[in-house]
């Protein structure tokens, strides 16, 4: 039987971030409630970044590590996003261009809120497992940004939704799917899915988000139990407490995962409080390692949790990870797979934590300024020129050091990008 799984994985957690405790203080949010979010930092999208730049910056190290022959076997590129930049044109077309991939490649985009990454992932796994093109690889990139439009303080403090701002991040996770899954090997046939119509959170207009924290949380909990229940029906002898060495959950914020784990352990595993807390630290906390530094990156969040588990958990033998993916609206899936010490070694070469360390920390004044100016590149922008060098110059230094792709111009809706190590001309000082 052909193996199908994750050959390589990388995370792009942005160029800049802000400290969420500082943001919470700045917004005058309740400090006790804020602590329960279990959040430390959130990545902030800059005006010259968009879902395309995030996707390319996540995938490029993976593609660069391939031989030309291997790269040419990428026959499917799926972008997974709820931050689309066009209703028709898939952002996978831009990503394909800037990664320099073979044109004999399927390009498409999937949307289903935060479940999109898993929809793309399972589609790619099935493509490889089905052997319709033996030896082919698929590149799946979950990429999302959150541009909070300038909100006045009263709006920012409004009830529960105010807590969405500190937890909403921007980021992309790229995964190369193929027959040599050194990073993560999904257990074939081991999945349970559960979905139904609910209006919990959504993006009803192109650049805004709205939702109800209570409804979304209840739906997440219902789905976790139902999707796991379906998994357990399909995989005999499954036990929530013992079958999985680690758990990687979709993480809107860490406190929500802690609550979901507690509820599952109490209801499904019949565990007591002390045991639940110790189990959380042992099996779940490693998955929060990167999530608490990037925020909720929607479609990629559950794979950010998986990356954290692979990098931070303490294992010396192959271990099984239970994965729970949830997307509002809603659809969810519980599945599992195996990682081993070689996975950690391979993922370590991407230096995800170092990439997060290198981000520029925004002051609150810079953060507010970015929000105020975010309309410059809002959905539907026909023409724009981004003066990259003028926007938070110290962040540009970070992006330049990484050779990141940035958005430079929009002309008749067509987006133009450039890698910063290609020495982009500064605005107003074009070469004679």
């Amino acid at each position, binding site marked *: 039987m052909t193996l199908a799984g994750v050959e390589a994985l990388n995370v792009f957690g942005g160029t800049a971030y802000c400290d969420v405790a500082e943001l919470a203080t700045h917004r005058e949010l309740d400090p006790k409630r804020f602590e329960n979010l279990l959040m430390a930092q959130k990545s902030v999208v800059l005006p010259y970044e968009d879902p395309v730049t995030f996707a390319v910056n996540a995938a490029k190290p993976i593609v660069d590590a391939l031989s030309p022959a291997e790269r040419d076997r990428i026959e499917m590129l799926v972008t997974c996003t709820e931050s689309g930049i066009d209703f028709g044109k898939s952002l996978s077309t831009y990503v394909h261009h800037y990664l320099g991939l073979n044109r004999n490649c399927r390009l498409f985009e999937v949307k289903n809120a935060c479940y999109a990454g898993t929809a793309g992932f399972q589609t790619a796994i099935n493509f490889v497992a089905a052997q319709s093109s033996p030896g082919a690889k698929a590149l799946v990139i979950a990429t999302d940004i959150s541009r909070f439009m300038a909100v006045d303080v009263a709006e920012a403090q409004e009830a529960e939704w105010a807590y969405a701002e500190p937890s909403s991040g921007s980021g992309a996770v790229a995964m190369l799917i193929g027959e040599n899954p050194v990073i993560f090997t999904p257990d074939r046939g081991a999945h349970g899915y559960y979905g139904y119509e609910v209006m919990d959170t959504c993006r009803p207009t192109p650049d805004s988000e709205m939702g109800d924290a209570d409804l979304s*949380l*209840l739906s997440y909990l219902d789905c976790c139990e139902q999707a796991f229940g379906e998994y357990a029906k399909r995989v005999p002898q499954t036990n929530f407490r013992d079958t999985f060495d680690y758990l990687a959950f979709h993480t809107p914020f860490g*406190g929500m995962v802690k609550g979901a784990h507690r509820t599952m352990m109490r209801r499904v595993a019949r565990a007591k409080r002390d045991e639940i807390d110790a189990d959380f630290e042992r099996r779940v906390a490693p998955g929060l390692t990167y999530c608490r530094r990037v925020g909720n990156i929607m479609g990629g969040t559950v794979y950010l949790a998986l990356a954290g588990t692979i990098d931070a958990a303490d294992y010396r033998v192959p271990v099984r990870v239970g994965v729970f993916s949830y997307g509002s609206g809603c659809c969810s899936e519980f599945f599992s797979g195996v990682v081993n010490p070689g996975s950690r070694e391979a993922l370590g070469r991407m230096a995800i934590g170092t990439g997060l360390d290198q981000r520029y920390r925004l002051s609150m004044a810079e953060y507010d300024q970015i929000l105020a100016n975010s309309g410059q590149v809002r959905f539907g922008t026909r023409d724009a020129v981004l003066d990259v060098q003028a926007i938070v110059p110290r962040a540009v230094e970070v992006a330049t050091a990484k050779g990141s792709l940035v958005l430079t111009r929009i002309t008749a809706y067509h987006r133009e990008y450039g890698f910063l190590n290609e020495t982009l001309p500064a605005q107003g000082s074009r070469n004679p």
Partner: protein
Amino acid sequence: MDRHTIFDMVVKNVAEVVPDLAGHDFQLTDSLVELGVDSVERSEIVIMTLENMNLNIPAVQVFGPKNLGELADLLHAKALAL
């Protein structure tokens, strides 16, 4: 099971999930949000009460109440409907 019994169950679960509120004199008009109970804690209170009542329905079906009295009423109605 009448609404007062359900209300008492809810109150017991609030005190268990948020020990700081154990001494509070709960009223039907109390709002968990105004008492500083966060969204994760609120969901746990709802789910624990459903368990206490042996009400096997999706938790999203008891979304919407704005205070403890409304929550008790909705849970009561759901129990009667089964």
